[in-house]
């Protein structure tokens, strides 16, 4: 945990100048509040002794000054701290992306096997961390500075005053947060797990509604949801209880501090150790200074959620890349024949083999189909050919040379993959196709789209090639997505083509169209087809049937 915190702080270090400024402004804001009430109290106390106006003028200037600065400092503080937040956000994103890019997709997929939601969590973790400065780092630092300043001020009058102040200040700033943390730690975990249990039942209840209704089980599901709903609310009731306690404790400590300070200061006045005119200012300064510690319980809670988020991110980022690029990679071959010899592979050493002693040849310009039931390792072959993972038993030869001796980046230049998982980005159709070759002209894009049988469809869209895909824009059908992926591959024009279940999700008519589009494109390319169905296998030179481990 300590280590996580240090690494987290390391990410913030580049902004230390801005952070120092923001904290200074935070202190100035609280300080202006303290200053306003203190000088006001001093002004009134002094006035009560009926001196000349001139004596009061300094105090009056002080009151007016603090009356104006408070708002201005608050404004500047908010501005600068938001600036830090956004700078931190940009840095976190770039940092995470740079760290994770060499790990993709192998290390991301491995962690991913239980939850499809890993990346969504990454994004929300980063959003949590973006608040690390404003909600975690800043409040205690401001409180420390305020505490120290007042400690010196009260110490100038009398040590007991300073000690009393500090005792209450620390009780409210450290004691209450720690108490609240202890009281709510288990509760917080219970609430999170209760909430996710409820979410699971709700997801089941909504996505599975057709099945529930068809089998007449809807009321049982509603009852389950209702039960979890009430359980969650009960936990939240206890949470409110703790939160109320924590706020009440903070407030009563603030008041007790002022009360004790007053009694001590009165004693000092009686012993002539303190001028009576300072009684009211000390009282009000104490009250006003607690503005700095009241947000600390919240900061403590935020700290633990930030540390949780950071721990998860670091854990992801710390993985070693699955594949190391050779120090002196071979230049790309002229001959694109593939040869696999006695290849065995397991994703992790303690897991069973996915491929066992597999061998096949695919000579340049020919087409080989690999057929087999799901889970026999067809996609694993693709992962190895792309060097997303590395093999250590057996050989894969490309143009007669060991695949491991090429750099993965170079390999990706000569291989096009069309798969079910091809990702289309939430941007225009043009940009999606252009990814394959950013320098391509409009003519080249259109010609690729024509070959992929998707040009007419694109033209029929309201904004043509500039239509956006995805959440905010167009929803494409499976066939349209697949044909866009093909257009991309055509534009990329790589000599090796891998079709990984490229038409599996399509209905018969669409499949036919897509297969036609592919047929022309395949010609002259070394093509590997991965499928579990016989449909695509008409124009194939050779078929390899995979049947579970220990085959071929």
């Amino acid at each position, binding site marked *: 945990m300590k280590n996580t915190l240090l690494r987290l702080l390391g990410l913030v270090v580049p902004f230390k100048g801005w952070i120092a400024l923001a904290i200074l402004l935070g202190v100035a804001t609280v300080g202006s509040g303290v200053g306003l009430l203190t000088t006001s109290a001093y002004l009134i106390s002094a006035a009560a002794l009926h001196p000349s106006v001139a004596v009061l003028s300094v105090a009056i200037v002080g009151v007016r000054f603090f009356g104006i600065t408070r708002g201005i400092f608050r404004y500047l503080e908010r501005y600068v701290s938001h600036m830090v937040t956004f700078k931190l956000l940009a840095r976190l994103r*770039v940092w995470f*992306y740079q760290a994770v890019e060499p790990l*993709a997709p192998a290390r991301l997929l491995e962690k991913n096997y239980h939850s499809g939601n890993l*990346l969504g969590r990454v*994004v929300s973790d980063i959003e949590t961390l973006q608040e690390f400065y404003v909600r975690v780092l800043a409040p205690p630092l401001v409180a420390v500075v305020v505490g120290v300043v007042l400690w010196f001020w009260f110490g100038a009058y009398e040590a007991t005053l300073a000690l009393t102040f500090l005792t209450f200040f620390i009780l409210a700033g450290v004691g209450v947060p720690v108490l609240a943390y202890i009281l709510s730690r288990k509760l917080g975990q219970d609430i999170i797990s209760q909430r996710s249990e409820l979410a699971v039942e709700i*997801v089941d*209840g909504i996505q599975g509604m057709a099945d529930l209704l068809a089998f007449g089980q809807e009321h049982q599901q509603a009852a389950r949801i209702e039960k979890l709903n009430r359980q969650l609310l009960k936990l*939240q009731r206890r949470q409110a209880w703790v939160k109320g306690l924590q706020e009440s404790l903070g407030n009563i400590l603030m008041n007790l501090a002022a*009360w004790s300070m007053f009694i001590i200061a009165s004693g000092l006045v009686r012993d002539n150790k303190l001028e009576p005119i300072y009684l009211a200012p000390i009282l009000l300064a104490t009250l006003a200074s607690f503005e700095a510690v009241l947000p600390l319980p919240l900061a403590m809670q935020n700290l633990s959620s930030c540390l949780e988020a950071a721990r998860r991110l670091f854990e992801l980022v710390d993985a070693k890349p699955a594949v190391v690029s050779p120090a002196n990679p071979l230049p790309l071959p002229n001959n694109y024949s593939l040869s696999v010899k006695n290849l065995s592979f397991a994703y992790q050493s303690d897991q069973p083999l996915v491929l066992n002693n597999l061998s096949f040849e695919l000579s340049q310009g020919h087409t080989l189909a690999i057929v087999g039931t799901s889970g026999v390792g067809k996609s694993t072959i693709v992962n190895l050919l792309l060097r997303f993972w590395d093999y250590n038993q057996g050989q894969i030869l490309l143009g007669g040379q060991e695949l491991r001796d090429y750099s993965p980046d170079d390999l990706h230049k000569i291989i096009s993959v069309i798969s079910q998982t091809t990702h289309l980005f939430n941007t225009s159709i043009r940009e999606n196709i252009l990814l394959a070759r950013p320098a391509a002209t409009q003519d080249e894009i259109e010609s690729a789209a024509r070959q992929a049988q998707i040009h007419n469809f694109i033209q029929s869209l309201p904004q043509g090639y500039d239509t956006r895909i995805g959440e905010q824009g167009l929803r494409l059908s499976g066939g349209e997505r697949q044909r866009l992926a093909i257009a991309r591959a055509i534009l990329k024009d790589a000599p090796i083509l891998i079709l990984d279940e490229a038409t599996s999700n399509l209905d018969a008519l669409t499949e036919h169209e897509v297969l036609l589009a592919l047929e022309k494109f395949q010609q002259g390319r070394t093509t590997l087809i991965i499928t579990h169905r016989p449909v695509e296998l008409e124009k194939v030179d050779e078929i390899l049937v995979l049947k579970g481990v220990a085959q071929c």
Partner: protein
Amino acid sequence: MKLDKRVLREAGNVRQYLFIVAGLGTIAGLLVVSQAYLLSQVVNGAFLVGSTISQLWPLLVGLLVVFVGRSLISWASEIVGNRAAEQVKGNLRKSLYQRLLQLGPGYTRGERSGELTNTLTSGVEALDGYFSQYLPQMFLTVIIPLMVLVATFATDLLSGIVLLLTAPILPFFMALVGWAAEAKAKQQFKSLSLLSAHFLDVLQGLPTLKLLGRSQAQTEIIGRISERFRKTTMSVLQVAFLSSLVMELGATLSTAIIAVEIGLRLLYSQISFEAAFFVLLLAPEFYLPIRALGTKYHAGMAGSGASKRIADILDTPLPNDNTLPVTQVPSKTGPQIIRFEGVSFRYPNQEQLTLENITFEIKPGQKVALVGPTGSGKSTLASVLLRFNEPYAGQIWQNDNPITLWSAAGWRKNVAVVPQNPYLFNKSVADNIRLAKPEATLEEVVQAARLANAHEFILGLPQGYNTLIGERGARLSGGQAQRLSLARAFLKNTPLLILDEATSNLDFENQALIMEATRLLMLDRTTLIITHRLSTVRDADQIFVLENGRIVDFGNHAALLQTEGVYQDLLGVRSEVRGVAQ
């Protein structure tokens, strides 16, 4: 900022809690004034009168009582606010799910399901801030400043006037600067979530980017977009923060004005010290609740946004009227004839009919197949037969009874469905099969699984029938899920069967096992099949070809193959290829 009325009504009676909040607020106001009074008295005593601590002791004890009182009140307010929120959230979540059940799968399926889940979980949760924070603070913002104002007027007219004059200025300026800026800030937060969406998009597409050799270039793009976002956002926030500037300035400047004003009058003995100090202590308390409302504004905003979405769901008109008792159930014995008579259906907000004048009959024990391209209305037809949707015209008959004779839930007891994408619940395998009959014994479950050719693979799972399915357990392949779905249908054992067949994702092995189990299931059952699969179509007694919601052709497989048309288009391609492969 207002909450949707409909949501408030559905939320039930939270008024009682609000009365308590108001009562607590009044006591809190009294305590605020008492505290200021007692403090001004003790300071006056020690500072000017020269009282000893023991003389001041009763006042000091009084202060302690006030402190404890204030803390208890604030604690109680938190708890009461939470109770109000609890009632609202609890009731809404319940009625939302009930509403979704009534709206049925036609409304909840597909793209919408994620958003609906979100509304039921975090959407409802967002109301918490409104009821537990914002609303109670609204009361405090009215009550406390009012009481402070009264106390100030009673003590010092001029200071009272200053407070009275500045009070409306604050909300006025807030409104002036705030609302425009707030709207902009909201827009900006929306684009912040778009930025997150972009980042997620890039992460999800990372393998694709790598393959295309574009992944490293993205680093720079992410940095640039984030930076550009920061610049535009900061320029908006510059304005948005003005509202807090006005707020702070208003509060502190008025305090400063009062301090100087009473200080000068004190100098000329126009006011006593204790009165002056009393007013000085009250002034910040006057603005405190207004400022606190500002910080709770966002909590309230989130709730108000969520309430609109919640109200939309609650206000969605129900497709059918399920008032008939579920206890009436069609007879499960005897032959079942199903007859569609001129059935038409139209989805809400759509002009085109999805089903138009559909008429056909399935004789007892017969198998009727529906084929047609995507979007031809096949699945809608099944959903009408399941009464997830009510026809817009026409009627469906079972033997001599219109199926509307029974409640939808009652009717469904007569039908078993094997859907295209069976949903597997986050439960054990056995419980997933038991969906069809919750009271079934394990023997019955195993028997059904055997018939569905699922028993073998279930035994191969880590904990057999007790293996959990889903995120926290085993993931099943499409074919395995399909076989569990068949097991459900075997367990339900109804005379009427609907098969909505998956078209893909099945490998040879699964396909053979499923075909075998399906044939067994269809024996002696009146069956409606929605299919692309040639092998099932070939066995059907009758085939209806659907296009654009109309039956365009019918006959048996052999006859249809002879006529040119949609049927050939649909299956011709496939049969050719299959011929080669076989």
